[in-house]
């Protein structure tokens, strides 16, 4: 070889970066293709820290980057690379980087690396212990060592500082197929870190026979636990939703979260969302084309009875998609994307009585070009819509109640 080993390593990285650059396209109109920024990157995902500093993770040219903003997204710090060696990274469908912060200033990022093969991947994680100036080496969280599907990571950090990562995993499906056994769907696994991301537990099975192409919703439950909701394959090929609580040692028995009666062998690419601000029930929102429910729905899942209440059709139009729900200051907010009159719209409804009654739908943002899913985030004072669009870049917009009175 004409290069010594360290140079070879960096040359290899450079080659991957160049190849990724060659095959990447300038998908966002208001930015220059070569500029690394939250506007030009893909699937930016944001969170506020305790001091209302906005932290955003995004993907561009084979790297996950983070940047922060002290003025609600008007200006950002210079992006910092999370992975040092370029990767193929999932940013399509329901996959996007996740960013969480500890109360003592650590930054945690998870994402799904695209590995060779069809719908294959590894769950990647990296942390920064110096306030986001640099990141430690990337850890692969799935521990089976198999070149199969581990995708759709979901991450949360509990008030006690435990980091949960859950994902969809193909190991049980692969094992069954090797034995020529029929295995509908794939599985849900998780791992926990109790040392601020320095290490993670062995992978733990939550459920077999999950749907394989929808994001998992995750939310903290109390000080130490997390709740996850995902699309599950029930008997008869019905793809409705299930819910379970993850604890540091094991997951609790799964419950059926929704009964939509969607019998299908198609891929919805449309995962749910969950908010656990209320101690007695979870706010759920989801999509279905079942015999019982079609479109975007809201309901409250009661933890004691394991049943739903206040089931409501939010938007039954076929263009309605990707809802997000968040309780903030005793108001439940729900946003989703739709398409009307040649524009993509973000619509919002809110409830001031824990989901019993809801406002009419209000349009709070629009664009004429391509756009990402809408996300709700909050600092101590306000709730915001975070929406990345081709024409406008990443926008952070306060979500407020319109003047119209709440519907009876």
């Amino acid at each position, binding site marked *: 070889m004409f290069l010594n080993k360290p140079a070879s390593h960096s040359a290899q990285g450079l080659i991957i970066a160049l190849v990724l650059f060659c095959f990447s396209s300038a998908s966002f109109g208001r930015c220059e293709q070569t500029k690394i920024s939250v506007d030009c990157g893909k699937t930016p995902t944001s969170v506020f820290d305790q001091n209302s500093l906005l932290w955003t993770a995004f993907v561009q040219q084979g790297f996950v980057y983070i940047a922060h903003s002290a003025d609600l997204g008007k200006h950002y710090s210079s992006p910092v690379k999370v992975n040092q060696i370029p990767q193929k990274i999932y940013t*399509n469908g329901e996959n996007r980087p996740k960013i969480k912060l500890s109360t003592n200033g650590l930054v945690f990022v998870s994402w799904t690396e695209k590995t060779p093969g*069809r719908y294959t991947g590894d769950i990647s994680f990296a942390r920064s212990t110096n306030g986001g100036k640099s990141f430690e080496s990337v850890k692969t969280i799935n521990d089976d060592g198999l070149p199969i599907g581990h995708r759709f990571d979901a991450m949360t950090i509990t008030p006690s500082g435990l980091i949960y990562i859950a994902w969809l995993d193909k190991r049980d499906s692969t094992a069954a197929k090797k034995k020529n056994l029929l295995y509908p769907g794939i599985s849900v696994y998780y791992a926990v870190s109790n040392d601020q991301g320095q290490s993670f537990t062995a992978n733990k099975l939550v459920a077999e026979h999950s749907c394989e192409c929808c994001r998992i919703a995750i939310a903290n439950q109390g000080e130490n636990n997390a709740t996850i909701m995902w699309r599950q394959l029930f008997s008869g090929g019905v793809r409705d939703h299930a819910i379970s609580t993850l604890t540091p040692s094991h997951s609790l028995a799964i419950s059926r979260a929704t009964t939509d009666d969607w019998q*299908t062998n*198609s891929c919805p690419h449309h995962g749910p969302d969950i908010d656990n601000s209320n101690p007695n029930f979870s706010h759920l929102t989801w999509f279905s084309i079942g015999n019982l429910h079609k479109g975007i729905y809201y309901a409250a899942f009661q933890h004691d009875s394991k049943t739903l209440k206040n089931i409501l059709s939010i938007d039954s139009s076929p263009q309605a998609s990707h809802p997000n729900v968040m309780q903030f200051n005793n108001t439940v907010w729900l946003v989703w994307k739709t398409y009307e009159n*040649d524009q993509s719209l973000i619509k919002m409804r809110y409830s001031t009585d824990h989901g019993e009654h809801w406002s009419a739908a209000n349009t709070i943002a629009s664009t004429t070009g391509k756009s990402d899913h809408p996300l709700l985030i909050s600092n101590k004072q306000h709730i915001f819509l975070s929406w990345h669009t*081709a024409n406008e870049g990443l926008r952070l917009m306060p979500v407020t109640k319109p003047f119209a009175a709440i519907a009876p």
Partner: protein
Amino acid sequence: MRKLILCCLFICQISLAETPALQQWQADSLTEVLKNHPQQPFLLVFWSLECPACYQELAALNRWQKKYPASQLILVATDSLDLQKEVFEVITAYQLNQAELWVFSDQPNAKLRKNIDPTWFGELPRSYFYNSQHQISPHSGQLTDQQLSQWQAYISK
């Protein structure tokens, strides 16, 4: 090192040049397709790289096309334009290159979907059987060999 980078850029250029241009599906592409297939029955299939059920359907379509190469098949990938190369690799792997090949353009996915079928929620695979009068029979989910045989029998009458 410099040679290596130049070589890499050259490979990039070759690879891009060799990636066949799939037709870009625009908001009015269905009108164009209907115009190009007057009084012809055809099967219009929407699929994605990210849809496991779609691969099983591509395998079934491959078997059908091998048996009935004259039957019209139009394949539209709903993936983003920067995945054209991967889309073409899958089409090639399933030996479906003879089909009419499209990929969604940079227009909003919901806009394209609404112009194809305002009742389609976006689930994949999604298929439309167009008879010679261009009457439509839509189907969500994976097509089976049996469904394709039934379609073949129908259009062969």
